[in-house]
């Protein structure tokens, strides 16, 4: 089954490129530490999912590039073409001349309706290239205007036109400070709209990934390209093929569907985060060896102590002894040390994967009181090594990990809203105060719901 990616705005397009490049590179990596036949099956599975074959033999990404100004898409298209290994489709790009100016309302209410038909046609053409469409992967930032506003608009349209297909929005959570001043407004508008039209929100925080680049990858002068490569690596570690059943050699047909069914069935809990281990610079990798037990022990502690990377994990955090649900908002203010999960998915890739013991993730104390580990925990595996790592593990988690950042964003936006600052920029394009209030209401509920696990 295939996934059609929609890359929106500067951020979405820059990341999209890195994602396809990472997927392609990994699946064509000669040393996957597995048999030739298995490698071929892995490659074929990856290809069916993310690339379509074109006449000249160069695979073409199943992706649509959308931006409201031409610079970034032009650059992205030519970067892919220059790689010579894969490219974007000939008619896969839609861009305009003038961006959304960081204004969600402009992207959503002006660009959206104006270009709805062209964009949806483009998407339909890409969908028609798939024998079987599993769903859409929509990459966007939530701080800007095009990714966030137009992204929300396009997602809503996809929901209307392809109601049976799955929609996962990959959202880049802005740096807490210093990207866009109206990012909190744009974020709450984006999140609340996606909560209504998307099936899952896979969130990457710029701050967290930035730290990974600094601490784990040892990059001195970190560029957005470095950050996007880490993001792409994490996404690849989740969406590259895995066996459908333990012990089988069949690769999973519909990872998007399986993932969602296991992680986001509840309408109030749609936010997913990724953690992976190991992640390091190529230099350090040469001197490292890993055991499954060690990796999984770290990964588990990363989960429960809510650390985004293996460095600086707080080993003091332990699952609580009694899992009495706390009611009321009081629990948010007290230090949220233990990160309660709703559901988790662990993906293991590499040597001796069958021997990995996942008992640590099946502890009921890790989960909310209303789901048992049997319902809340899943594992996917493949013997085929990912990227350069002989063994690697990734965790997709629906947990309280975003509770604090979300609460912060809602709080800041609310403060601004109470002062009526910047509202005129939005009302100019047809958004009303009522719409803001709707968004606040919905997200306050999401905060409360995650809080009351």
């Amino acid at each position, binding site marked *: 089954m295939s996934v059609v990616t929609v890359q929106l705005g500067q951020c979405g397009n820059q990341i999209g490129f890195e994602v396809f490049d990472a997927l392609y590179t990994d699946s064509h990596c000669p040393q996957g530490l597995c048999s030739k036949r298995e490698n071929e099956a892995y490659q074929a599975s990856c290809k069916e999912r993310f690339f379509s074959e074109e006449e000249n033999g160069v695979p073409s990404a199943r992706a649509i590039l959308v931006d409201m*100004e031409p610079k970034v898409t032009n650059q992205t298209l030519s970067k892919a073409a220059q790689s010579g290994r894969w490219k974007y489709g000939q008619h896969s790009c839609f861009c305009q001349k003038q961006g959304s100016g*960081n204004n969600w309302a402009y992207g959503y209410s002006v660009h959206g309706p104006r270009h709805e038909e062209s964009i949806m046609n483009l998407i339909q053409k890409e969908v028609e290239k798939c024998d079987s469409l599993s769903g859409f992967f929509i990459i966007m930032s939530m701080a800007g205007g095009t990714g966030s506003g137009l992204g929300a608009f396009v997602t809503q349209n996809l929901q209307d036109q392809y109601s049976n297909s799955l929609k996962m929005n990959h959202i880049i959570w802005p740096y807490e400070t210093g*990207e866009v001043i109206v990012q909190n407004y744009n974020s709450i508008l984006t999140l609340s709209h996606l909560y209504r039209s998307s099936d899952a929100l896979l969130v990457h925080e710029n701050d967290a990934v930035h730290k990974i680049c600094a601490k784990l990858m040892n990059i001195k002068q970190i*560029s957005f390209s470095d950050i996007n490569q880490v993001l792409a690596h994490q996404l690849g570690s989740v969406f590259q093929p895995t066996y459908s059943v333990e012990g089988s050699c069949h690769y999973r047909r519909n990872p998007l569907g399986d993932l969602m069914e296991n992680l986001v069935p509840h309408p109030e809990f749609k936010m997913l985060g990724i953690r992976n281990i190991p992640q390091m610079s190529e230099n350090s990798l040469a001197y490292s060896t890993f055991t499954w037990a060690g990796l999984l022990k770290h990964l588990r502690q990363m989960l429960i102590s809510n650390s985004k990377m293996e460095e600086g994990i707080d080993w003091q955090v332990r699952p609580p002894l009694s899992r009495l649900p706390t009611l009321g908002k009081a629990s948010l203010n007290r230090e949220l040390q233990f990160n309660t999960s709703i559901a988790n998915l662990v993906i293991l890739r590499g040597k001796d994967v069958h021997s990995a013991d996942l008992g640590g993730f099946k502890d009921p104390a890790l989960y909310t009181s209303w789901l048992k580990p049997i319902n809340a925990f899943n594992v996917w595996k493949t013997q085929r090594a990912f990227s350069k790592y002989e063994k690697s593990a990734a965790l997709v988690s629906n947990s309280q990990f975003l509770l604090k950042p979300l609460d912060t964003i809602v*709080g800041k936006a609310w403060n601004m809203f109470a002062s009526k600052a910047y509202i005129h920029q939005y009302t100019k394009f047809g958004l009303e105060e009522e719409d803001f209030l709707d968004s606040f209401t919905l997200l306050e509920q999401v905060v409360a719901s995650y809080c009351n696990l």
Partner: protein
Amino acid sequence: MTQSVVVQVGQCGNQIGCCFWDLALREHAAVNQKGIYDEALSSFFRNVDTRVVGDGGSISKGKICTLKARAVLIDMEEGVVNEILQGPLRDVFDSKQLITDISGSGNNWAVGHKVFGSLYQEKILEKLRKSAEHCDCLQCFFIIHSMGGGTGSGLGTFLLKMLEDEFPEVYRFVTSVYPSGEDDVITSPYNSILAMKELNEHADCVLPIDNQSLFDIISKIDLMVNSGKLGTTIKPKSLITSSAGAVKKRHQKPFDAMNNIVANLLLNLTSSARFEGSLNMDLNEISMNLVPFPQLHYLVSSLTPLYTLADVNIPTRRLDQMFSDAFSKDHQLIRADPKHSLYLACALMVRGNVQVSDLRRNIERLKPSLQFVSWNQEGWKTSLCSVPPVGHSHSLLALANNTCVKPTFMELRERFMRLYKKKAHLHHYLQIEGMEESCFMEALSSLSGLIEEYNQLDATKSMPVEDFPRLSVAM
């Protein structure tokens, strides 16, 4: 890609404009080495086949033929414009872009605004329309003028209202040169106050510049260079005040260096919209991020570095110094001290080899020393443009929406009041048709209203930051 049209009004406006076009050509020549007319060039220049009669055929692709500035030059005297037409930049303009008169506005806002306004309205409109027709996506008008004189201040602000009516969706960015205290134009307080009301009402963003600050900056650099302290280590032609190869070599005018700074400001302001970068910032993002309330659209700007050291490898220390300088009182293009006032919002537009980590490190470093309004504690907007200015490895333009502009406005009001109490020179204004005393009163109350808004914000400075009670979810 979008296009912008520069409208330069009056002597000051045209002089700055002239510097701007010179620098813009040099910048594009440095980046665009193949001589191909590209999208970046198209934002300020048309490519014209001069052999085609009439309008000159616009060429959208291919080799550069003749570049024409997207500009409208207005002055009610002929001097400066004629000088430009005889100078090296003459090919960039053609006569169809010019509007001149011979009588001048006599340093009287009312003459510029009311007399020439109604006289030239049709003609100006026609030129503006023409220039807009040459754009396939016109995004912004840059108006360059001074506040103190007659033409720039009067006709320049008249123009604003016209643009608003005629092109409501196109942004209006105004670069306004404010008179210094010891201005030689006696009526400049009147002119400025009357112009301020128009700026309040019809501009999207105003970048106030003040001659005194520019002069101080230049003196300081001169001192440093000439004292030999930096003399040998400064890279040639890297002074942003220098106008090497520019308009006039014959007799360096006193204002040239100052105008160069302003021209650089405009260039850097638009660089992220013109060139590639890992974090783009379009022009419409400026007002979106920096203007929280419609009237508070005065942005204090600062440019760093003002020169580049000859050593190409920038140590982090130098890079960080660039950020520190941008916030110092000495680098502001208007006499103001943002560090000790209240920030509503702040933008950092970086060019050259600077990465997001450098940006973040400096924001974290500087944040504690700056005070932001309670509801916008993280009021930072950033951009990274990969193309540095000519002769530099990197540069920073900081734009601050900060209550530090208030003293300039208050001083203006004081000077106005001093004059107005004596009714000095008032008759020059009142004799113009359509001018009444109420015009002065309205202008005054508009300015006072603005000052009051800043006052109220300043008043929150000493108050503890308190969150507004959030919506309370029952369950």
